[in-house]
């Protein structure tokens, strides 16, 4: 008998897994399967829960806590999926394939319902309620939003932000992208320099610009702007409390941060304009400036729109810069910052919620443009 045939015999001799067993044994096996289907996810969940409890109350070394937290967070999520799949595999066959998709999408749907859908609806409801979020007050909060001095200033400022920041960031980014395209060397370095501020937090950027806008009542000026100003014979100025110019100074920070984003995307668009069109225009005697306005700009217009709308959304939500630089004082309020102020400092849930709803209503149309555009692009690709 060859090796192979003997193997065959061995396989044949082994009884098929469940056949030929007594009903009791089969029931026992079924129960075991049923039990493990539940037990494994439950045990996984309990382990995670206990670690969370420990993390919250532990008094251990920070580094150890951090390590455990990272391990639990990273491995925990995978463990949960694995345990759920384990459970599904032990279900009766006819259920398996109809349950499995829900193991895959279920967690995402649950998280989204709890963390976005429910809060969004709840915020709309609370925006019709009073300071504690209990009593119904109708449209009072919205009336407040459009009549309070601080809020009106915030709306005015936000509109200014929406116009100024995208305009300058996109213009400078576009100009830079066009110029840098003509360089033979150093394009990557130049782009990195402009793009770099994108990696920095708003708080970090505020510290950076603090060194520019700083004002000292006594002694030498340590802020660059005052340094230059006094060198030309001016008296030191407290720039950040100088209405309404302080708003402009805060916008400069945002422009500094966002120009790189516009530049990178527009640069890619410019490079995708076909060379033969440009060449044809040049042969026809167009100057470089004409080529830009008549050929390049029209062909990248849709990208310019996307970059601008994206930036409008970013600007609408700007909070950190104002919060850290001026704390919304000296007439520098913006909508997103007011929302936090009313909710956390003035403890008025209803008004905070109403401001959040306004923010949402402002974002929806801009977002619709973006998503439609993104889908069109995906369809082409």
């Amino acid at each position, binding site marked *: 008998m060859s090796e192979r045939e003997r193997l065959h015999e061995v396989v044949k001799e082994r009884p098929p897994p469940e056949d030929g067993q007594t009903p009791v044994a089969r029931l026992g096996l079924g129960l075991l399967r049923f039990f493990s289907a539940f037990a494994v996810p439950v045990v996984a969940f309990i382990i995670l829960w206990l670690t969370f409890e420990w*993390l919250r109350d532990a008094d251990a070394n920070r580094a150890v806590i951090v390590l455990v937290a990272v391990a639990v967070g990273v491995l925990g999520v995978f463990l949960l999926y694995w345990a759920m799949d384990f459970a599904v595999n032990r279900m009766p066959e006819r259920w398996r394939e109809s349950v499995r998709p829900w193991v895959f999408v279920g967690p995402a749907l649950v998280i989204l319902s709890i963390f976005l859908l429910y809060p969004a609806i709840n*915020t709309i409801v609370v925006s019709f309620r009073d300071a504690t979020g209990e009593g119904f007050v109708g449209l009072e909060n919205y009336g407040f939003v459009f009549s309070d001095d601080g809020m009106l200033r915030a709306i005015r400022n936000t509109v200014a932000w929406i116009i100024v920041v995208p305009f300058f960031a996109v213009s400078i980014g576009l100009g830079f992208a066009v110029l840098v395209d003509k360089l033979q060397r150093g394009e990557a370095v130049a782009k990195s320099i402009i793009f770099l501020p*994108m990696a920095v937090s708003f708080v970090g950027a505020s510290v950076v610009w603090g060194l520019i806008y700083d004002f000292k009542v006594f002694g030498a000026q340590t802020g660059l702007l005052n340094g230059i100003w006094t060198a030309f014979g001016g008296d030191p100025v407290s720039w950040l409390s100088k209405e309404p110019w302080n708003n402009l100074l805060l916008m400069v920070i945002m422009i500094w941060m966002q120009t790189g984003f516009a530049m990178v995307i527009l640069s890619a668009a410019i490079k995708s304009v076909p060379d033969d069109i440009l060449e044809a225009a040049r042969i026809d005697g167009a100057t470089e400036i004409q080529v830009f306005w008549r050929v390049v700009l029209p062909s990248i217009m849709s990208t310019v729109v996307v970059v601008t709308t994206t930036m409008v959304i970013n600007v609408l939500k700007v909070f950190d810069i104002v919060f850290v630089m001026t704390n919304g004082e000296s007439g520098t309020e913006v909508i997103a910052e007011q929302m936090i102020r009313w909710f956390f400092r003035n403890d008025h849930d209803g008004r905070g919620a109403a401001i959040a709803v306004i923010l949402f209503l402002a974002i929806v149309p801009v977002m619709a443009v973006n998503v439609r555009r993104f889908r069109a692009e995906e369809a082409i690709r």
Partner: protein
Amino acid sequence: MTTTTPKEVFGTESTPTPSLVRRIFDRWQVKVAIIVICVLWLIPAIGLLISSFRTSALIESEGWWTFFARPFDTAQWTFDNYATVLDQRGFGNAFLNSLAVVIPSTVIPITVAAFAAYAFSWMEFKGRYILFVAVVGLLVVPLQMALIPLLRLYTSGEFFGVATPFPHPINGTYMAVWLAHTGFGLPLAVYLLRNYIGSLPSSIIESAQIDGATHFQIFIRLIVPLSVPALASFAIFQFLWVWNDLLVALVFLGGTPDVQVITQALAELKGQYGQFEHLLPAAAFISMALPLLVFFSLQRYFVRGLTAGSVKG
């Protein structure tokens, strides 16, 4: 130039070319313009870098630009600011806390979104399309809108009057922040990953199924390795977003020194008016170190991640 491409030959023959002087002048203008913009962009960063290494007496008594008058005077340099910030002002701790927040806050949404994206692309179930559209629709909800109800949910431990499964109180724990960031990042992640995973060739998935692989195995062994570029760009976007975030940390993590993340620590240090002014530049640099490292090492993915993020509400 010794070699000429056909294009250049063509160009010089058929157009009334500007004189050589004129062309060089053009180049020169372009270069100057680029250099001016770059210098303008760099000035604030250079100011920060210089200030972070100067002695506290100098920082308070003169502008950082005076450094250029005497760059070789070594007495003005010091590492003290960094040492003080890391040690006494708790930035070492805050850096660790930021890591504890940012790593799971990046991994969890990617995992959850990748599983969901796979199901939306390659599994049959009722309401698949409608659910996907609903998920993408949530892109428009700004996170400001979720803050108030979530904070209540966290502090009360109740959800529509029913006790939640969260350990109570969850507020002020890492998990509170992870879950919040996961929720806020999910619509974008599902959307991007579904576009990518859905565009993978169906033949590989079908042949794996014929070989008897389960969906779970296909996902782990095939889909995840094939989707690395998409996963990486979202990971970088989310990483930067979470690392640089102040608002979510402020609301859900609370401000106690032992848990606060690095942006909170920095904002607080800046808030202490004037008192710690000499420490701010060093502190800011510490907070930027990791994003900058990511920026320089993964620039390609980084740019793609940020462009992909253009549809986040």
